[in-house]
């Protein structure tokens, strides 16, 4: 035990802490990109899937194909696909950019389904009433449906966000210097796996715990808004 703390102490140099912070920031950036942009694009896809009429069928088809494809392909494979797609296209971009694009693609696909399920959980009579009063689809969603769908959307969405923080570790496979990569580097520098990855484990917890607290808080707050 003594050697564990001794080793931990020797790990805590200025440069190592800076390196760890940088890795944590990258993990945060990746997750934030995936969750925020993914949430935004996912909502758009969910709405696209709810359109009707033949004019918008290409939109529906795209939304369906996109969500079904990226939900079925493993994270790592999507990451590789993006990596080689950029290479093939002759774009000279950083691995971090490849990582960000990947997480947005995956976040969009998963969150689109979570949002769609939420929107469709609202009773059809709410849609009919809005439609009969000439609300457009977007007005209906903004003023009537989304406010009632939050309680259904938030728990799985935050569950997904937290999974996502951890999944972003796979970006280390293409050389993105995020938390897991930092752990591997510490380990390679001679620190024991217990210390190297113990620190990383703690860092992941410190990132995901506040997020799940935030989720619980939001659920409570929005849960008091009236739903059927």
């Amino acid at each position, binding site marked *: 035990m003594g050697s564990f703390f001794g080793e931990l102490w020797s790990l805590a140099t200025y440069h190592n802490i800076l390196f760890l912070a940088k890795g944590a920031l990258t993990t945060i950036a990746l997750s934030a990109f995936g969750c925020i942009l993914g949430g935004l694009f996912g909502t758009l896809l969910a709405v696209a899937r709810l359109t009707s009429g033949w004019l918008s069928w290409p939109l529906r088809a795209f939304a369906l194909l996109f969500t079904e494809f990226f939900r079925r392909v493993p994270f790592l494979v999507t990451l590789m696909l993006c990596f080689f797609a950029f290479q093939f296209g002759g774009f000279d971009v950083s691995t971090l950019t490849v990582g960000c694009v990947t997480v947005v693609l995956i976040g969009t696909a998963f969150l689109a389904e979570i949002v769609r399920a939420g929107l469709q959980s609202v009773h059809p009579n709410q849609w009919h009433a809005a439609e009969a009063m*000439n609300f457009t689809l977007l007005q209906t969603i903004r003023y009537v449906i989304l406010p009632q769908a939050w309680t259904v959307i938030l728990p799985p969405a935050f569950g997904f966000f937290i999974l996502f923080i951890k999944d972003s570790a796979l970006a280390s496979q293409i050389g993105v210097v995020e938390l897991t990569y930092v752990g591997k580097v510490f380990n390679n520098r001679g620190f024991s796996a217990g210390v190297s990855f113990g620190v990383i484990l703690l860092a992941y917890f410190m990132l995901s715990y506040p997020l799940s607290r935030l989720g619980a808080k939001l659920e409570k707050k929005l849960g008091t*808004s*009236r*739903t059927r």
Partner: protein
Amino acid sequence: MAHLELDNLSAAYGKLRVLDGIELSVAKGETVGLIGPSGSGKSTILRVLTGLLKPETGSVRVAGKTINFDKPSEIRTLRNRTAIVFQQYNLFQNLTVLENVMIAPTKVHRRKRSEVQAEAEHLLEKVGLASKLESYPDQLSGGQQQRVAIARGLCLKPEILLLDEVTAALDPELVSEVLDTIRELAAEGMTMVIVSHEMGFIREISARVAFMAEGKVVELGTPAEIFDTPKQDRTRDFVGKILRH
């Protein structure tokens, strides 16, 4: 001249034909009652009139203008002329009573908020809910919710108000408060199409009553003609059964 005219109107849900050659006209200021057994197409007529269901054949004319159901702009026009009150009230659960009444006029019709608010408060006072402006639908009784739904419909300033079994979901002691509100509207000259199983009420309030069965208007006449001297066997049967209760 008739304000609302349905001519040879047919509609279907998938393969199930629910309206079959409906002929019906409603004059301005007139209240027409639709009665008939469940599944006879009464509510479906109202769904067509709010653009929720597209007819297969036939025409709907409002103020002499035929609605083209293939044109979204014409469906919007139709919806601006009509307002529907549903059996299950369908109030927006996330909004207060006042917001429920105000949202369509302010957000859809883009009318001035202050002006709409004054109107909404007036309407809610008229239906006896002045003290409930800030309540949420789930804090109200069924009868109160239904009166909010009526106020919400009226705030759209419809030319024709459509009432779809508005008392069917209510406890018996709450029915009269909603009927009183509708009586008042009829007295003020609101054009209304009312679907209801409250035969006494339909008889009292309607200028004309249409008895429907299997998607057709079987018989159309004054309440006295339909309830006292029905010409068709089906009408006699139905009215006989109802009045025996």
